[in-house]
């Protein structure tokens, strides 16, 4: 029965092949869907956030058909290289380490600092327990800083760890954390902001040079006509650094 359904599915898929070729390629946009306001699943169950709006606009400018896919942060790069989707657009900072495995477009969010958030002013940031999301530039920074790193798979869990006392503080992007501290009187920003990373860009497979050029051109055009700046201010507020 299962086998039957399986071969039926394959038949249906191969039958669609001839049809699809005439329409060019559909670009599958991979995102995490758990990092407001960058990207999140809204109450209707759809991908929403700054990167949804940006990605749709970039696809429109490049004349591409795009489809949104969510994937766990931990396996977001392996699933790109194995071909489950074609781009990563998930608030991913451009780093040398990642650049060895995948290619990045130019940045569409300028480098922003990361901050610590804790329950009290006197939280020990240098020697205490700091929560950060696994496989991020923030977790890399904490591992080097001398504090004890406590890693979580999702951003939400890192904040929950501070609320329930498992960690002394959480270290993450300023735009993600300020949205939370604005609405929670118990949490506060402590210590100084730390400038990290080379801005946020889209990740693509290294073999996808043509697609990379299309997205780079689309980002450039959005930077030039000021729509990108307007979008940044709309989603991240007036404090976000913008492009000249």
């Amino acid at each position, binding site marked *: *029965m*299962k086998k039957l*359904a*399986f071969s039926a*599915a*394959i038949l*249906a*898929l*191969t039958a*669609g*092949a001839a049809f*699809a*070729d005439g*329409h060019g*390629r*559909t*670009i*599958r946009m991979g995102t995490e869907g*758990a990092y*407001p*306001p960058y990207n*999140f*699943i*809204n*109450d*209707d*169950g*759809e991908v929403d956030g700054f990167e949804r709006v940006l990605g749709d606009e970039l696809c429109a400018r490049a004349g591409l*058909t795009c*489809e*949104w*896919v969510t*994937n*766990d942060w931990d396996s977001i790069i*392996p699933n790109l*290289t*194995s*071909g*489950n*989707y*074609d781009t990563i657009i998930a608030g991913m900072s451009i780093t040398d380490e990642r650049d060895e*495995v995948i290619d990045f477009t130019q940045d569409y969010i300028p480098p922003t600092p990361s901050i610590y958030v804790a329950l009290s002013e006197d939280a020990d940031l240098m020697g205490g327990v700091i929560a950060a999301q696994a496989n991020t530039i923030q977790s890399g920074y904490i591992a080097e800083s001398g504090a004890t790193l406590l890693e979580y798979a*999702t951003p*939400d*869990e890192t*904040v*929950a760890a501070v*609320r*329930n006392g498992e960690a002394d503080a959480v270290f993450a992007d300023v735009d993600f954390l300020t*949205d*939370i501290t*604005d*609405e929670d009187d118990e949490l506060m920003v402590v210590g100084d902001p730390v400038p990290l990373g080379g801005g946020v860009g889209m990740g693509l*497979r*290294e*073999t996808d040079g043509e697609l990379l050029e299309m997205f780079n051109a689309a980002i450039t055009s959005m930077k030039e006509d000021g729509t990108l700046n307007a979008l940044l201010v709309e989603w991240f507020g007036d404090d976000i650094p913008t492009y000249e």
Partner: protein
Amino acid sequence: MFEFCAEPSTLDTWPWFACYLTNGVHLLFYQSFLTVLMLLAITAPVALAFGFVGAAASRSHIAPLRWLGKLYTSMVRGVPDIAFFLFFVIALDQALEWINHQIQCPDWDEPIRQGANFIVCQAAKIPLSSAPQWVHEVYNYFIAVFTFSIVFGAFAANVLFGAMRAVPRAQLETAEAYGMTRRQTFWRILVPQMWVYALPGLSNLWMILIKATPLLFLLGVEDIVYWARELGGSRTSQYAYPHPDWRLWYFLALLVFYLGFTRVSEIALTRITRRLSHGQATAGGEAQRKAAA
């Protein structure tokens, strides 16, 4: 869902919850319960079939077939579930794409493996990247069901193999004395009698299978545990329904679901045991005979 849900922030507690619990993401959450139940409904019989074939092969008189059956049960049982799920699914997916690639794009000259990248031509992608998202989801789902069936089939094969050996030798000898062939003895005497011996082992497997469904998320299928974690996490006013960390309540609901489901299973399994013991040369069958007399 309801008309009064247009402005959630203005609602009282009860209408707010009525709207909250029926919004889009919650409907996906409820749907994932069906996903899990369907997985069980498909996997259980398919795994049983795999197990039956595996057990029959393991006691075959043809050596290569016997080796194959033994290899299947011992290999799959020996590999940790998580490793098997991560490795096998990716390997299966890439094998299918590779075969499809050889058929669709014979003139392709670039290497398929380029470092970590696995690149086949666009026409060979399964499913095609232009296919709608639900096709991708259905494909992932069936890969997941297939993988679950192989893993649990190996355990079932071992249980059935043991059960086949537990059928009293006298029964088979009698069949042979009546002039039945090997095939007849297998189907008419051995198979009908082995189930009562297999049942305790199979019911264990069923219980483990029920609880193993969160492994689905490893395979990219959004199951009930994924949604409970996702929905229970605290929400800022970026969302229409902001709330603090409610994961405890969501996981409590899952606890009730799983406990309820295992209880129902236990009742059903007890009934099946009673039915199968009827007229058998076991303690259970004997007890039934005495009670009736």
